[in-house]
């Protein structure tokens, strides 16, 4: 025993023999200019939470207008000033709210916040690597993300207000800088483009790092089919990102040329106040193609990480192997490929050739197949498992429910003939909020509750978590389910007062607004829980102490992240990186509750593969 310890210490000293070269970290290098994937993950997460609050708040504001179009809310004037004179949100500001809500939630929370947090946290930990392929580029990725956010945030405080031409940034309205046409198309939209450009750079820098790390920096024994599904999902997400974001960038470059230098890529024969402007030959539809070539893959950039997290959480908390592991991997791959060839289903009413529409309908409906396989496998994973009703797992189960509900309406919308009726109505809003917005949030929450101990060495509070879950689940259905029945109600309208037919939706609109406020308050609970738990949460139990490092495994997971000490070391493992001997889902096998990936096969044991 004596000698064994001595040998261990020796080895330890060996690894850190060159300690003199290591510069001690200062506050600045540790928290601000950190190149450590775990710190960058926290930076992304907390920035994402900030944006989540802002984006959510914006929706509460416009729901006030939609729910009670005839009321005034004097308190609004005191903090919005001219945007809510007399306590009524102005038309211009309403459109800014809707636009920025979409932009912030889609890009800053569910893309940057979600991928940024979990790719950074999980990729190095779960593939068994000390950090990303390029920690420096990784840091840049965060800093571009932050810069993008600063620009977007700043745009709220300029005279003409932030962009207000929709999160999809369509020309012609966004192609003219004339604020007489639309306030938000002035400087606000230039800032939008600048912010999005920085954001795209951030996504690309992050993405290429994630892919290079997964493919090159796995530990010994970690072949591709021993990767947890989180990693597969995050890697394919990054692939989609690096291949589709450039199209948006190209679209935005051309748009900014139209705006600043009077080219006519998207503009043609525009008449303002009886004056014919000099633009000729352009086509706004061209922008839609470039936008949706990113835009559709983007929705999978949002949902795939959530799917990966959910697969992992469901398996861990049901104490059962993931059902159909390889089917899951190939489904993600199929989704990746298909996601690039369905973009025109957002453009069925643009005068698209109906025959082309039929082809896009076909590809669109094909996506239902891998999606359904995944749903089936999640249910198969939970089925007859020893299911723990922890907050993380409830959110994962909630994800599956939401994804099914929203996916079904996708199949309806995917038919070009039906979509002509439904396009730009609340039915679409219901579809994509349930299938993308709420589902991705559920996946993200499942991930945060599950990996919070890895990030901070403490648990989040379960009671608050459960309240948060039920409020969000019931509330989200209360908000979005009724929208399916607001037949024909166009989206993005400031008021429907001039349309008598729509009067019968007044009650529903009010009901939805109340639910939205409650759900928003529910999220405040999460934020409180999050920050409280960082400092005061229950500590992760120490299971063993080796060489002065405490080890734990709060959920009894098999994956590599808990083979590293509870304390978060730069470089992740104090000694050598552990080798991997088995796939990541050995739950409830050989009479054991779980077998870590680092454990060698017993003589005669047949590996899963």
């Amino acid at each position, binding site marked *: 025993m004596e000698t064994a310890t001595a040998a261990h210490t020796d080895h330890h000293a060996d690894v850190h023999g060159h300690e003199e070269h290591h510069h001690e970290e200062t506050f600045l290098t540790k928290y601000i200019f950190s190149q450590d994937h775990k710190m960058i993950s926290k930076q992304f997460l907390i920035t994402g939470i900030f944006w989540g609050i802002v984006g959510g708040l914006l929706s509460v504001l416009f729901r006030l207008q939609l729910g009670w179009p005839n009321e005034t809310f004097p308190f609004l004037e005191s903090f919005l000033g001219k945007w809510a004179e007399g306590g009524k949100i102005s038309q211009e500001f309403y459109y800014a709210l809707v636009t920025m809500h979409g932009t912030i939630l889609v890009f800053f929370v569910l893309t940057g916040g979600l991928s940024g947090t979990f790719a950074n946290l999980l990729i190095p930990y779960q593939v068994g690597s000390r950090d990303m392929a390029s*920690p420096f580029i990784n840091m840049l990725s965060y800093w571009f993300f932050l810069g993008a956010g600063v620009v977007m945030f700043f745009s709220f405080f300029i005279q003409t207000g932030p962009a207000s031409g929709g999160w999809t940034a369509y020309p012609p309205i966004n192609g003219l800088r004339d604020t007489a046409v639309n306030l938000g198309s002035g400087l606000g939209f230039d800032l939008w483009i600048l912010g999005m450009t920085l954001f795209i750079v951030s996504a690309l820098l992050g993405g290429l790092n994630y892919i290079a790390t997964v493919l090159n920096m796995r530990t010994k024994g970690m072949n591709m089919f021993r990767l947890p599904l989180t990693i597969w999902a995050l890697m394919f997400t990054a692939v989609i990102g690096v291949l589709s974001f450039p199209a948006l960038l190209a679209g935005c470059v051309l748009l900014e040329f139209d705006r600043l230098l009077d080219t006519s890529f998207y503009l043609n024969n525009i008449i303002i106040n009886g004056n014919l402007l000099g633009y000729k030959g352009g086509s706004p539809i061209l922008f839609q193609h470039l936008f949706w070539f990113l835009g559709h893959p983007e929705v999978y950039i949002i949902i795939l990480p959530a799917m990966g997290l959910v697969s992992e959480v469901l398996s861990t908390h049901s104490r059962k192997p993931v059902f159909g592991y390889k089917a899951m991997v190939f489904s993600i791959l199929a989704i990746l490929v298909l996601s690039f060839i369905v973009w025109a289903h957002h453009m069925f009413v643009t005068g698209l050739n109906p025959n082309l529409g039929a082809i896009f309908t076909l590809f669109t409906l094909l996506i239902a197949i891998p999606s359904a396989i995944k749903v089936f496998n999640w249910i198969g994973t939970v089925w007859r498992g020893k299911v723990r009703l922890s907050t993380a797992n409830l959110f994962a189960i909630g994800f599956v429910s939401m994804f099914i509900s929203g996916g079904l309406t996708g199949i309806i919308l995917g038919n070009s003939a039906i979509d002509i009726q439904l396009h730009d109505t609340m039915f679409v809003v219901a579809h994509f909020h349930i299938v993308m917005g709420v589902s991705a949030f559920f996946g993200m929450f499942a991930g945060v509750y599950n990996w919070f101990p890895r990030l901070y060495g403490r648990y989040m509070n379960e009671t608050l978590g459960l309240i948060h879950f039920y409020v969000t689940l019931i509330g989200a259905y209360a908000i979005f389910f009724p929208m399916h029945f607001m037949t024909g109600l166009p989206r993005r309208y400031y008021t429907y007062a001039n349309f008598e037919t729509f009067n019968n939706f007044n009650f529903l609109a009010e009901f939805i607004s109340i639910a939205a406020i409650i759900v928003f308050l529910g999220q405040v609970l999460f934020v409180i829980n999050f920050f409280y738990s960082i400092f005061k949460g229950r500590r992760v139990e120490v299971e063993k102490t080796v060489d002065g490092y405490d080890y734990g495994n709060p959920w009894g997971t098999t994956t590599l992240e808990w083979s590293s000490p509870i304390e978060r070391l730069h470089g992740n493992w104090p000694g050598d990186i552990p080798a991997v001997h088995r796939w990541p889902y050995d739950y409830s096998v050989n009479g054991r509750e779980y077998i870590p990936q680092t454990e060698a096969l017993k003589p005669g044991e047949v590996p899963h593969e």
Partner: protein
Amino acid sequence: MNVTLTEKEILQEKTEYTGVHPQKFALWIAMASMTMFFAALTSALLVKKGDYRSWEGFTLPTVFLFSTFAVIGVSVCIHAALLSYRKSKFAQFRWLMFFSFLLGCLFLMLQLKGWSVLQAVGMTLTENLSGSFLYVITAAHGVHIAVGLLVMLVFIVNAFKNRKDPIYELRDIINPKRQLHLELLVSFWHYIDAVWVYLYIFFFLNYR
């Protein structure tokens, strides 16, 4: 205990799954991304060209053919520089880098010349769509070239500044990181040169 591993130490533990250094691999992915960017721009051009009502063609100025030669020159030169670096012929390396830089600058000047030829025949940025596309795509490509030139300049300045310092050159020989960075730069240049060759052929076929 706060141990900070340097980037180098972290990378030393890379495993050899793809046999490629992770950062080089990352550069390849970046190239795929840039390819999508130029593909998006050129397909936008094709879509608009298909819309015959708004497309007014014109012939591509021949200057762009000469810039194509310039850019091929950069590739040849910088590759030769890499080879002499590998053979530790540092004097040769420095001059070849320097020539690559000059050729790169020449390329940008020829592109500007191309623009002024267009201006001279009345094909301004806003005159019509076919012209606008040519300006925007060449500008987007030019930005990439300019970035490549900046990084190249850093290499050149370092190489010339330390040319009398034997220790520096010794480190050139034994420091794998420095060679890696050079290889990354060279790959980038080959890539962005190839993009121009593609663009030139594309323009040549579409502007006549």
